[in-house]
């Protein structure tokens, strides 16, 4: 064998790599060189890097086990800084110039890992160890240890700098897999005129044709794949997506595809595809073998070894032993011997091997050991030798080797079929689960359906595509199926897994460090259902989801419990098939694109006024701090301005629903706990809305604009929700009512002018509305011109002051605000923000639904019980108020709180205990719902829900604010102007 200088294990010729394009990369800081066409795994193997990771639990060195997405061991970090991606499978990372990769689970390094202490003390860490930590003595004892020892990779810090895309697509036929079956089917379906999407997870289509020495019509299989791909690319009705994994199948056959960008501006793209039919052509995954110390670097799947030899021209060893329970691994022997790589022994667990195969092996000069298995392996950082024994125990001695190719048979990739709720059955000859009942609009072909023979696969794929095309109304032409002129050794009859009796650890799940001993313990402790077994041992629960180990786990569980594997069944395969980044799921919906910013119609004015904005669903000013002024000080100033002179508040986001029709009043009588039909035109009333459980869901005033027309104010976040609820009642329940609901929230801008000088400001603005208290009293509304703008003026107040709400069409918002500020200037008008409004309303004890109330608050709890009881007719939620729990006397009720020390600030969320100087633990008696420093009273005040609160006015209760305790006095929930004298001026 001639080895080139670049990579000691690289062949001089062959493979699908471009030797003219060397690529430098680093692994754990060491520079290496690979070629275009390599994966990170093949390049590491070519450079003789064997241990690339430490195992999850025992921190044992691990190498590269597979050549695909099924990899259980070789998890690495790719990239640096914020772009670093943890838990990448080295086997599917295409090599790029300058690639930076690092091992992630070893500390301080992959070759010297202190965590391996766990390995030396492994009897202390059995299956279910984690679960048992919760029982004895308690989780806290173990938490630090477990958290340090376990885990995969480091999470990212800071924002992800990569871009992600999402695409929705429809097609007639989605083909999952671009191997020989998928390509064949795509050709037939495309020629029939179907709109086809073909998704292949590798960066190029071809599957086994690219990694095996197969000839189709006397040409190399990969050439046929290349030609087929270029023909398909010319077809306008075919979308060929390479480097794209079908990750999940959901209801109505919706599938998700994860595409990895190749030289694109985005890193990943998540497709949502609605196909009329799905063809599963996803092939099969080779399974491992169970034997003592079967986890050392240098132990690799036999098919993966062929992949590295044939596709990447890498022979990652010098002395090879092959262990198998089926025929397919013999192809590995022939491929290696063809390259003059010595294979010292083939260990076959079966008693009888076909004579033809025996003869071929003999001619090649490899020793065959039948009815035997590997009884131990040696070599800490990498394999050095294996020990062989007959099943009954006869030791056959050591064989020196640095590479052990194993094959435990092939498991069809049926995960997607299971997502779609197809069923599986256990097939004894192939010792694997194969498709049984297919979901509607599904077909399976090739190795995914359990086929071994390539010619059969090609013929069946063509036939399946024809059938699908006909079903979908596109009869297909006859298309020549290529003939396999050089095939490969097929698995044939697969021998059952026969783990040897050994006290050494035999891994079932390499990724999660689950051993045969763990399986035995789980069964001893009664976890014999496959779903319990999985969760107790955690087998198949790592990043790889047990793709190379689950089948063996099910077989072992069957053997341990005396059941047939088919009877044991499988665990439930759930999406996603491979890990999907959160970035791909979010797409562009992050940061500024998470949700559109809703701006007030007078947003620019508020900016000019130096408003300090916050997102409340709308961008709203909290307050308008002056230069050097804190938000708190600004709020105190604004509140005092409203109390002493006048302020203006932009209330435009408040919900505005117009309800009209002959039955509008009748309808609203059923919606509010308050009487609506008795309200005169031009008058305003405050109302509460409940859900059918009697819980307050919204509040606000409503105006009767005409006999058959109302304007409802809802909370600013509630407009859409309440409009939807009203529609539901009208459309589904009270279809006889003639009522229309319109959400006009964004149509109207609304400004509140509040304070003792409010009437003066309105007069200065110029209006034809009679502002005399007798003509426009509190809770009345009128339409007219204000500042020459068509307006509606309502005397309502959330501040407790004389207050006018002026509504104008949204486009007039800035004009009106400008006019108000100008007209108010002589009176010292100040704009006030939502934080100031919250202080004003807290001083008055006005309810803020969702802040002071929660999902259990009834009208009686907040002092509106009498109104609800007095109301004659039925309304939504009324009946529920009669239920015993809602009539209980010890319910939490709305009260005010005054700290004994007036400077002591209350914090919302603090718990209350009845009585002075109480100490938890105790059952909570309530909690603070709102709190602020009242500038008007110059003291701390709070609102709260307190058990039996209304009967406790004047009592002292204890506030528990985290570790602090202090006493407060319970008072009525109104701190300022309880007689409402200021409202009615």
């Amino acid at each position, binding site marked *: 064998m001639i080895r080139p200088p670049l990579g000691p294990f690289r062949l001089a010729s062959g493979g699908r790599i471009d030797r003219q394009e060397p690529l430098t990369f680093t692994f754990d800081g060491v520079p290496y060189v690979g070629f275009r066409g390599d994966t990170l795994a093949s390049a590491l193997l070519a450079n003789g890097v064997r241990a690339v990771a430490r195992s999850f639990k025992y921190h044992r060195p691990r190498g590269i086990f597979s050549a695909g997405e099924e990899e259980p061991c070789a998890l690495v970090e790719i990239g640096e800084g914020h772009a670093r991606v943890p838990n990448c499978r080295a086997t599917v990372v295409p090599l790029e110039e300058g690639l930076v990769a690092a091992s992630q689970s070893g500390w301080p390094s992959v070759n010297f890992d202190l965590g391996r202490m766990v390995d030396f003390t492994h009897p202390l860490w059995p299956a279910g160890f984690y679960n048992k930590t919760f029982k004895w003595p308690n989780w806290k004892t173990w938490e630090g240890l477990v958290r340090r020892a376990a885990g995969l990779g480091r999470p990212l810090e800071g924002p992800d700098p990569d871009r992600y895309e999402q695409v929705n697509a429809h097609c007639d036929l989605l083909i999952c897999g671009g191997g020989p079956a998928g390509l064949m089917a795509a050709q037939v379906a495309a020629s029939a005129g179907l709109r086809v999407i073909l998704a292949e997870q590798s960066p190029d289509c071809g599957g086994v044709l690219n990694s095996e020495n197969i000839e189709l019509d006397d040409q190399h299989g990969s050439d046929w794949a290349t030609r087929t791909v270029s023909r398909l690319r010319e077809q306008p009705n075919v979308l060929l997506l390479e480097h794209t994994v079908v990750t999940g199948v959901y*209801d109505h056959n919706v599938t998700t595809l994860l595409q990895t960008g190749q030289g694109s501006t985005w890193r990943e793209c998540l497709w949502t595809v*609605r196909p009329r039919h799905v063809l599963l052509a996803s092939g099969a995954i080779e399974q491992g073998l169970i034997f003592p110390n079967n986890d050392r670097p240098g132990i690799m799947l036999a098919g993966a070894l062929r992949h590295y030899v044939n596709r990447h021209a890498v022979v990652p060893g010098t002395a090879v032993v092959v262990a198998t329970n089926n025929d397919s691994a013999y192809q590995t022997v022939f491929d290696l011997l063809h390259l003059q790589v010595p294979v010292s022994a083939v260990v076959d667990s079966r008693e009888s091997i076909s004579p033809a195969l025996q003869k071929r092996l003999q001619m090649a000069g490899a020793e065959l050991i039948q009815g035997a298995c590997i009884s131990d392996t040696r070599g800490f950082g990498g394999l050095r030798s294996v020990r062989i024994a007959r099943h009954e125990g006869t030791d056959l001695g050591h064989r020196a080797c640095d590479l052990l190719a194993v094959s435990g048979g092939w498991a069809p990739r049926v995960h997607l079929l299971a997502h779609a709720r197809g069923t599986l059955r256990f097939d004894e000859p192939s010792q694997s689960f194969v498709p049984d009942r297919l979901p509607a609009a599904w077909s399976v072909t090739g190795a995914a359906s359990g086929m071994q023979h390539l010619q059969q696969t090609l013929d069946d794929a063509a036939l399946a595509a024809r059938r699908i095309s006909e079903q979908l109304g596109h009869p297909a032409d006859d298309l020549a199926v290529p003939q396999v002129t050089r095939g490969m050794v097929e698995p044939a009859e697969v021998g059952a897994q026969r783990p040897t009796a050994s006290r050494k650890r035999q891994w079932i799940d390499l990724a999660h460090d689950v051993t045969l001993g763990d399986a035995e313990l789980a069964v001893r402790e009664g976890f014999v259902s496959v779903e319990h077994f999985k969760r107790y041992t955690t087998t198949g629960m790592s990043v790889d989801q047990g793709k190379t180990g689950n089948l063996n786990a099910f077989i072992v569980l069957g053997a341990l419990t005396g059941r047939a594997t088919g009877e044991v069944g499988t665990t439930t395969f759930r999406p996603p098939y491979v890990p999907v980044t959160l970035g791909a799921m979010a797409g562009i919906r992050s940061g500024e694109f998470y949700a559109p910013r809703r701006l007030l119609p007078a947003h620019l004015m508020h900016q000019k006024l130096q408003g300090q904005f916050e997102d409340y669903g709308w961008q709203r000013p909290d307050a308008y701090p002056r230069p050097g002024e804190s938000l708190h000080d600004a709020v105190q100033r604004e509140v005092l301005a409203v109390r002493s002179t006048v302020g203006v508040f932009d209330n435009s986001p408040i919900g505005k629903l117009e309800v009209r029709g002959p039955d509008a009043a009748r309808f609203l009588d059923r919606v509010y706990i308050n009487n609506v039909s008795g309200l005169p035109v031009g008058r305003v009333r405050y109302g509460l809305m409940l859900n*059918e459980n009697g819980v307050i869901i919204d509040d606000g005033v409503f105006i009767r604009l005409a006999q058959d027309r109302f304007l409802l104010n809802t909370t600013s976040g509630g407009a859409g929700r309440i409009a939807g609820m009203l*529609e539901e009642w009208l459309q589904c329940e009270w*279809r006889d009512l003639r009522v229309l609901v319109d959400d006009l929230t964004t149509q109207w801008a609304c400004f509140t002018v509040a304070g003792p000088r409010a009437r003066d400001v309105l007069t200065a603005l110029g209006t034809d509305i009679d502002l005399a208290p007798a003509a426009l009293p509190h809770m009345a509304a009128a339409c007219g011109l204000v500042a020459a703008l068509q307006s509606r003026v309502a005397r309502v107040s959330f501040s407790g002051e004389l207050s006018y709400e002026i509504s104008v069409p949204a486009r007039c918002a800035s004009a009106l605000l400008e006019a108000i500020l100008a007209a108010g200037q002589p009176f010292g008008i100040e704009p006030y923000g939502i934080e100031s409004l919250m202080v004003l309303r807290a001083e008055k004890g006005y309810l803020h639904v969702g802040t002071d109330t929660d999902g259990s608050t009834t009208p009686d709890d907040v002092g509106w019980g009498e109104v609800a009881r007095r109301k004659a007719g*039925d309304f939504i939620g*009324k*009946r529920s108020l009669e*239920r015993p729990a809602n009539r209980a006397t010890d319910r939490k009720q709305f009260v005010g709180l005054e700290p004994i020390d007036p400077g002591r600030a209350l914090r919302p969320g603090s718990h209350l205990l009845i009585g002075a100087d109480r100490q938890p633990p105790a059952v909570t008696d309530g909690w603070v719902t709102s709190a602020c420093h009242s500038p008007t009273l110059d003291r701390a005040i709070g609102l709260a829900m307190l058990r039996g609160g209304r009967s406790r006015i004047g009592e002292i209760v204890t506030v528990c604010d985290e570790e602090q305790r202090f006493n407060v006095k319970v008072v009525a929930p109104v701190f300022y102007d309880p007689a409402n004298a200021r409202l009615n001026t």
Partner: protein
Amino acid sequence: MLLIKCPYCGVRDQTEFRCGGEASRARPDHPEHISDPDWAQYLFYRENPKGLLRERWVHRYGCGQWFIVSRDTVTHDILDSLPMGDLPPKGRDAP
């Protein structure tokens, strides 16, 4: 993700709709006359059948109309969609 046919707009993606639960639910005509257990039955108890179920859905990000969908809760097959008014008179809880 289901494909749902709005009787007014045609077949659309599930994300345009909101499910309002079982269609057979009907508000008692005289809540004040029924017992607490009967009221609880209306509030909290549902058929939740395995198989065919009639549900009310609203085309929330479309025409805004409520309608009745017949859905198989096992397969998620949607058998038909009917406008609200086309539904046969619903059974009322006994007053």
